[in-house]
């Protein structure tokens, strides 16, 4: 009985706690702009832009002063009816392709985009070459596998 009562208490407490947390979160997430759709669009765009001050954060995430200003700037540009592309152009005109988490493909970024693919292909080619060369080698060139080895044979100590 006592157990039941304490469980009931715990339940009430956790419900209260959940409501409290929910309320606190709702307060935090209140949009700064009057228009939630516009705010969502602003966050969507700035989530693709690198904050210049804390370079591993997006402008949407960062609390840096500059990021706050840039969010305000983007919000205003959207209010004026500018397109997403215009906002992105505005940013790259000031900070270069560096602000884009997905930089466009062009001469200066070609290595960045193609590099990993080229490396992977080179690695695969090397692997194929080595495997083919090994497959042509006579069996005598390889050490016997453990399960093929003769059971009576002494375990070999390394000779060199």
């Amino acid at each position, binding site marked *: 009985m006592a157990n039941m009562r304490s469980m009931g208490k715990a339940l009430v407490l956790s419900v209260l706690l959940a409501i409290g947390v929910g309320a606190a979160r709702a307060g935090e997430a209140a949009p700064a702009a009057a228009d939630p759709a516009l705010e969502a669009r602003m966050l969507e765009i700035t989530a693709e832009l690198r904050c210049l001050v804390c370079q591993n954060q997006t402008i949407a995430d960062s609390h840096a002063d500059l990021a706050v200003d840039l969010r305000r700037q983007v919000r205003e540009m959207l209010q004026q009816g500018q397109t997403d592309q215009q906002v992105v152009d505005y940013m790259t005109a*000031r900070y270069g392709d560096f602000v884009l988490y997905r930089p466009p493909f062009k001469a200066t970024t070609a290595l960045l985009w193609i590099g990993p693919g080229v490396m992977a292909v080179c690695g695969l080619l090397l692997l194929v070459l080595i495997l083919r060369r090994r497959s042509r080698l006579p069996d005598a060139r390889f050490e016997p596998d453990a399960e093929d080895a003769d059971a009576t044979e002494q375990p070999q100590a390394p000779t060199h």
Partner: protein
Amino acid sequence: MKKRLNFLIPLILLLVLVFFLGRGLGLDPHEVPSPLIGKPAPGFALTQLDKPEQVIRRDDMLGKVWMLNVWASWCVACREEHPLLVEFSRQKLLPIYGLNYKDERAAGLQWLGNFGNPYDVSLFDHDGRVGIDFGVYGVPETFIIDKQGVVRFKQIGPVTPEVIADKIAPLVRQLNG
């Protein structure tokens, strides 16, 4: 012969890797190359820090090679740079304009009173919008702008005696022909 040199391949790969990693060590990721170099400086119309009624526009500066130094009273690195700027301003090599970035008038003026004023004029950019147009992200920053209003040089972070001697001074002399 070919076989005998094969052992060099990993060594060469290692050297290539060391070269690139070594170069990477020397690069500062905070120095983002400015797309503004070689382009016209963004337009602005700002009041003077000490004269709120006096407006200065970009086009007022055409025909002069000038320096724009972004500073703020809250900026620690600016204080570090300041004595050098004061000394440089005595050479009168070119007009030095300050951009007082996201600051308060009183704080900015007091700062100049305390540490000396190297600026011909300081422009008051209270909300930082002109700073954004110049792509400012780490105060102090310094720009050299030519007679046609084109940005020719940008220094991110404090200028050093070497930067002045090796880059700024020769560039200004060249631009002034």
